[in-house]
């Protein structure tokens, strides 16, 4: 299936450090998105990067996309305790209306 895979599954860092999460997928995409989920809550959209883009920034977030390697990374700079959450990448199916989410990276930022 197209479902993405995030790496690592879990990440624990100190407040102020940077956090990097990776996502790999299998087939061609139109765009790739990153979402955040606090425990027991719905997902919140963070950033969308299109297949013809290589890098995108939003505040402390930096996303890169390498379509030749079918991979993306999410960098959170100067992390805060409030960044503690699970982070998911989502890819479309290139044709169709559905999205496929990865298994997520659980980030813990220690104050």
């Amino acid at each position: 299936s197209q479902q993405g895979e995030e790496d690592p599954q879990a990440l624990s860092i100190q407040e102020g450090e940077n956090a990097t999460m990776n996502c790999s997928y299998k087939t061609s995409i139109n765009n790739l998105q990153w979402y955040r989920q606090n425990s027991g809550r719905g997902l919140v959209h963070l950033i969308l990067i299109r297949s013809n883009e290589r890098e995108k920034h939003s505040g402390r977030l930096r996303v890169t996309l390498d379509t030749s390697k079918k991979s993306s990374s999410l960098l959170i700079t100067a992390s805060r305790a409030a960044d503690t959450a699970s982070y998911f990448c989502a890819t479309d199916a290139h044709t169709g209306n559905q999205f496929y989410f990865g298994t997520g990276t659980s980030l813990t930022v220690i104050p």
Partner: protein
Amino acid sequence: SQTIHQWPATLVQPVGSPLSLECTVEGTSNPNLYWYRQAAGRGLQLLFYSVGIGQISSEVPQNLSASRPQDRQFILSSKKLLLSDSGFYLCAWSWEPYNEQFFGPGTRLTVL
């Protein structure tokens, strides 16, 4: 502004009982609608999506079904729940395919 509602927030049901989860969107028209299931500590599994009233696409064969009786209403149903149906059910909408999805607060279903 747009809002998405899901209810109930939590539900405990016995095996073999029926299920009906409702999702409604306010503040937009003709949204794309999605149902996902998330098992404990896992990623999201797309169950159904809909691009319009009465138009439902199923991603995973199972004992669940979905309906869209109105433009902004999406219902997830089952005639007989299985233990494996337990999970966190999320409804989402988007304006267009491939664009940002907006998620509801979710329904935590426990089948005993």
